[in-house]
């Protein structure tokens, strides 16, 4: 039931977008375990349609939030993040011409980073169901880990194939990108799909939403130095 509701909501959002969109998660790690988080959602490829839908106020009976409402939500997120111990310099940028939204913040340690991610998800949760809290990152003894334990939220291939073709198309064309930057040189990464920069100071992993939703790809990555 929860998945049905989340799928319906996902559909309602996705149906407003007829082209690709990118979600980027970027973490810059310092050697002492602190760092900088950047979350970016780029909807610029759908900007013409989105502008139209926002002016109309609804699409297919689903209410589309206004610019003021979105700004209010972003302000809420900024406030929620600022309250977390270990989180500082929270900044939020929203560009309603290009439909690019970004939140950056400094974190003192992994605990604060994980709380920040959970708070972000909680702020944007429009469903009546509470979302579980996860541990998304860990960092100890020369090892940085991106965890990906969202097994219950995944779709089986059958469930995915059962979605409407337009939803499948949108999930296949929407990208998720994760970039992690480090001060030390990377020795090893566990995820075979991850790319290491020539400088060996950055790791990138990307895929479309459908791949992560069905478990074909995972963001899980253990990076050692």
């Amino acid at each position, binding site marked *: 039931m929860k998945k049905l509701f989340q799928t319906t909501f996902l559909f309602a959002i996705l149906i407003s977008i007829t082209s690709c969109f*990118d979600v980027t998660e970027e973490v810059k790690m310092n050697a002492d375990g602190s760092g900088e988080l950047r979350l970016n959602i780029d909807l610029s490829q759908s900007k013409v349609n989105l502008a139209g839908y926002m002016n109309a106020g609804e699409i297919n009976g689903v209410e589309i939030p206004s610019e003021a409402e979105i700004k209010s939500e972003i302000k809420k997120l900024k406030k929620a993040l600022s309250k977390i111990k270990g989180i500082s310099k929270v900044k939020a940028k929203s560009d309603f011409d290009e439909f690019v939204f970004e939140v950056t913040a400094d974190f003192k340690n992994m605990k604060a980073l994980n709380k920040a991610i959970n708070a972000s998800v909680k702020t944007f949760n429009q469903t009546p169901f509470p979302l579980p809290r996860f541990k998304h990152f860990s960092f100890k003894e020369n090892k940085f880990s991106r965890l990906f334990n969202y097994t219950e939220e995944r779709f089986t291939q*059958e469930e995915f194939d059962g979605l*409407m073709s337009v939803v499948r198309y949108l999930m*296949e*064309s929407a990208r998720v990108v994760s*970039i992690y*930057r480090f001060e030390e040189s990377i020795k090893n990464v566990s995820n075979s799909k991850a790319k290491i*920069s020539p400088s060996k100071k*950055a790791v990138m992993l990307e895929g*479309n939403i459908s791949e992560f939703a069905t478990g074909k790809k995972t963001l899980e990555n253990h990076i050692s130095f």
Partner: protein
Amino acid sequence: MEAISNNYFFNHKLLKTNSMKFFRITALLFLLVVAAMSVQAQNLKQYIPSDATFVVSMDLANLDQKISFDKLREFDFYKEGMKEFDKEMSGEKKELAEALKNPAAYGIDVMSETYMFGDISKESSFFGVAFNISDSKKFSKFFKNSILPEAKGAVMGMTGKFQTMTEDGATFAWNDKVGIIVGGEPNAGTDQSVIDGFVKKVLNGTPKNSIMTDMRFNKATKGRKSDMRMWMDYNWVMEMQMGGNEMAGVPGMEAMMTAMKELYKDSDYLVEMNFNDGAVVMDSKMFMNKKASDMFAKMTEGDLNKNFFKYLPKNNLMGYFSMAMKTENFADGMFQMFDPMIKEMGMTRESMEGMALGAVNSMGLEMDAKGLYEIIRGDMVFAVTGMREFTIKKTQYDDDFNKVEVEAQQMLPEVLAMMSYGREADLKKIIQMGVDAGALTKVGNSFKVAVPMEELPMDMFLTMKDGILFITNNTELATGKLKDGYSKSDRMTKDQQKLMKESGGAFFWDIPTSLNAASEFAKEEGMNDKMAEKMLNVSKQSFESIVMKTDKKIKGSYNSEFKLNFANKKMNSLEQLFNYFNEMYMTAMNSGGM
């Protein structure tokens, strides 16, 4: 028509009533019987009232020759449909369920004439179905065992030569040869007795008081043979459309509606569908009164500029739309049509043209009224002439995974719009105004349209040559490389040229070429929907093209034709259509559903 029938007939309260089991059964029977109709009925047509607003017929015997019912039963979608049907009917008597699946076994003559008709007005809505009975004993037995027991509270009687059973506004009537279902519902404020009157009129029908005496119906349908046909009184369509018009309070609208009703008075509309070998053909004819006919004939008069064909290629042409029209003639017709509305607003054609001229003259264009209609003459073509590689801006990541904007190549449709123009000097002045306003930039002998790159990832050009105004993203054409167009051997085929030349309006869509382009685009974008890919492949293999055309000359009726062409020219199109549906159905089922 579809909107009207949805509003007034198929969503009719009578058909949706759940409380009356008898009527639901009768409605199901009626729906199945609709699938077994034929032309030619002299004796059945006598039961269609002379003032019927629409008549539908289908020649199932003809269709059975094109694809036998036995073959239809073999299709997976049909088998699945029957399973669902059996589930729906599981609460009903077995005989009734069987009768709906195989009416012939219960004395209903499915291979001969049957008609569906209706009379819908503001006051009331009536409908009827008349069919032949092949075996009266079987039919009587079926009726007594399956229909009668379900019809508690029904009133039995006799009307004319028919035995009748009436319940809740619907009457089932039969004799040895003919069966009729007739009923209706009065709208608010109308007496229930009108239904009885309609029923009596139908059941007492004779050749002399039926649609058989309607001159317009006979003129439209006489001697015509088709697999499916619908005739309707276009007066009725206009009455219904005008009746619910929310714009009635707008100044001039009432006069406009009255004029439209007068214009379409005594008009009929006929649509016929034939499943030929290799193509499904749908013909429509609008029979109009002389005034309307003359007006439309004038409006659609025009010729297509033959020089257009120089710039339309044979290869990779995905589709086009053409119109052979004269702006002045079209304007004449529109002003004639809207004259009552214009007058009610206190204006005239001259005053409106004067206003337009005033605006045009103030921009520095010296023009008279005729000049207004000469700038763009009216004949035009819009075509998608292939796919072309365009440079677009894409966001990528550099070596250090920082976002950068790069230029990339992408295949996008190549489009071309051509219009004939008449006043070159004036048109050049208008274009210069576009340049001065920043909307156009001069590039050689052409003009680039200033549209933001992100919204249109290609350059659009505007250029003029030999009386043709081009708007295109084909840079070769725009920059003069194609100054004489394509070579004769590379131009569109003679058949295509003939279609465009001889039609008032023409539309063509090359299905496989377009689907190939769509498929390539999807692959480039990283889309990997296996089911969609399979469906695309099935469609590419099955279909060849869609062609629509309207007649250039109006003689007696305004005709148009829609043709769905299949790749296989030898197999009948009905069989190919069912094969296609079955393939799509199986693909969807094997992929987990749509």
